[in-house]
């Protein structure tokens, strides 16, 4: 019961702040609402027992991505406090499309007969911490994707620096 209440509370926070994030006229506020949403998602991860993922979510998403976003917002100063409409002319088609997308997924979920597999699994693993399992998997079976992703990250870093660094030729 407590679980259920917690779930609905977090879900409400997530959806509410996500809506605010999308609809907010101020981009800076949007970024803050994004942080709230991500925090809610992290809480859900924790509820499911994935404490490691929840930690990463907080560290990486809120600690890095959102902060970086706010930096960029600040670098492109003029937008703070702006009151011009922040949505474009596609609002109505976008509402229809996204509603349909949500409906389709929900319909699919409800139509699906999940059967016995879920009941067993949940019974076995409820709220057990699997950080150790993830660590083992990452360094054994998934070591190659792990390395590849680190190279990708490095490449993205270098790329970002290359894109943003000021053109010396242009400055002269």
């Amino acid at each position, binding site marked *: 019961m407590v679980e259920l209440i917690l779930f609905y509370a977090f879900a409400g926070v997530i959806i509410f702040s996500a809506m605010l994030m999308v609809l907010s006229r101020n981009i800076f506020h949007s970024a803050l609402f994004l942080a709230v949403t991500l925090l809610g998602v992290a809480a859900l991860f924790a509820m499911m027992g994935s404490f490691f993922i929840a930690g990463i979510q907080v560290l990486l998403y809120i600690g890095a991505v959102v902060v970086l976003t706010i930096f960029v917002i600040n670098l492109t100063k003029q937008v703070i406090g702006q009151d011009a409409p922040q949505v*474009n002319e*596609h609002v109505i*088609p*976008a509402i*229809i*499309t*996204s509603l*349909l*997308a949500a409906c*389709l997924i929900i*319909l*699919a*979920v409800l*139509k*699906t*007969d*999940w*059967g016995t597999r879920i009941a067993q699994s949940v019974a076995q693993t409820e709220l057990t911490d699997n950080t150790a399992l993830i660590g083992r998997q990452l360094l054994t079976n998934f070591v190659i994707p792990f390395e590849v992703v680190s190279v990708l990250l490095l490449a993205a870093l270098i790329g970002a620096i290359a894109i943003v660094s000021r053109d010396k030729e242009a400055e002269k």
Partner: protein
Amino acid sequence: MDTISMLGLITAALPILAFIIIVAFTKKYRLTSALVSITAVAISFSLSCYMLYQQIIAPGLHSFNIPWMYIGSLELNMGVMINQLTTIMLFVVTLVSMLVQIYSMGYMHDDEGFSKFFSFLSLFTFSMLGIVISNNLMQIYIFWELVGVCSYLLIGFWYTKPEASDAAKKAFIVNRVGDFGFLLGILLLTFRAGTFDFIKVIAFVQSGAIEPGMMTIIALLLFCGAVGKSAQFPLHVWLPDAMEGPTPVSALIHAATMVAAGVFMVARLYAIFSMSQDAMHVIAYIGGFTSIFAATIALVQKDIKRILAFSTLSQLGYMILALGAGGYTAGMFHLTTHAFFKALLFLGAGSVIHAVHTNDIWQTGGLHKKMPITSITMLIATLAIAGIFPLAGFWSKDEILVTLHDSGNTLLYYTAIITAFMTAFYMFRLYIVTFLGEQGHHSEHAHESPLTMTIPLMILAVFSIFAGLVGIPGQEINISKFIFFSESAGSHAESMNMGIAVTSSIVALSGIALAFIVYFFKFIKAESLKKISGPIYTLLENKYYIDEIYMFFIKNVFFVITEALKWFDRNVVDGAVNLVAFLTRWGGNKLRRTTTGSVQTYALVIFSGMIIAIIAFAIYDPEALKLLGRP
């Protein structure tokens, strides 16, 4: 593959080798080119002699087949087939070709395209030999077209002259009409018989597996090819114009060999033709009509080569007539003798033209003293073609007349007799006007031609005299026994029919006498003859206006149809293409606006498209929405 058929292959292959050598290596060296070409054909000639000798002492069929390709169950072969008929043709073709090439060394001496000329001659010789040694219909058709190409190249040899290039095109196009029928005939025959091979096709036809009506159609379609190549009546128009080519070409291609290909083809496929009496009648009547028709035109022509061209038409008509009447041997025999004396006539005419630089017989005259060798050899050939005993033409013509007489068709028989009379008349008209009589103003500086030109004349003269002797009825070595094929024994006289021989001699002599009366002694003025005949003379001079009728037909019927087709092509076909192009451009122009450059529009379209696709899929199969799939 036995020796004889191998030799046949080599005989045909040597000229193409010469052609390749000339084109690839010796084009710049005139004399070398000529020698290469002549050497090749001389070797071919000696091989032909050997094969002819072998066939005389031991007649038989030698052949081999090389599979070329398979189309379904249809087998395409290339091969060689040597029998008596083939060896005679090989002998004639290589002999005339060799002599003409030697002659050309003198005749074409100052021409810029000397080497090219010899390469073409070699190519032609190869193609002609290819026809002769073919053992199947497809192969004969390939070479058939090749000689057409060579004929085109050689008629248009002096392509800077508009008449020559026009004549070349005309020859090619008119031949195509006949060849089209020929191809249809071949395909129809093969469609029924399932093979191209002569022997198998003939066996199939003789088994009576094709119904008579179809047989007639096939035979007539095949005959179309002969009508085109041998210039028979409706398609004869190209041959007189072909005289625009160099004279040796006229002698080789348009008198002795290529135009005989039609006759040869009919003879080769004689068994097929003889299955259809109707077709044989058509062939006989076309031949007979052509012979008298061309002879009448030849009576009034002025151009020495055109007279000979119409004479050729007439003589080819004779051969076709003989074949149509069942005289296979007679036709082939006449082909052989005709090849010699007609080649001689053309080469002699070439010698005259070489000396006086004009084709108009009325501008020459009295050449006998200036050019004795040419004159004497020409006289021999003229006597031969007129059918005077005991020259070659007498025997072969006699054979044809006997065949016609025995076939019981009096109309054709008298046609042939009248044609013989006219032949004697116009040939002597030509001879008297050119060589006897007063000097024309072009003949003052005339001189005898060089040895390279006169020697071939002399050799051909010898053949023109003696070639007929193999046809004397009743003797041991006899052409009729040699190439005797499928004729009924009755149609073939074992001894001379004295009545017919005397008749034909009298007819020929009276023709000659008339020519002397009119053109030598001038008892009757040629001018007054012209006046008496009046419109008929004009009609003949204009060759019955056949060319004009064709042109009228082409302008008023053909061009109207082509104009309509052109309109259809320009407006409907092109219009459809243009419409597609226009729609594409128009549509592209409109669709261009969708490339807004706005990322979010793209995203919206992609997402909504995806959603629509999923919904459509779900409507088609609702089960597909289940996430875990079917058990």
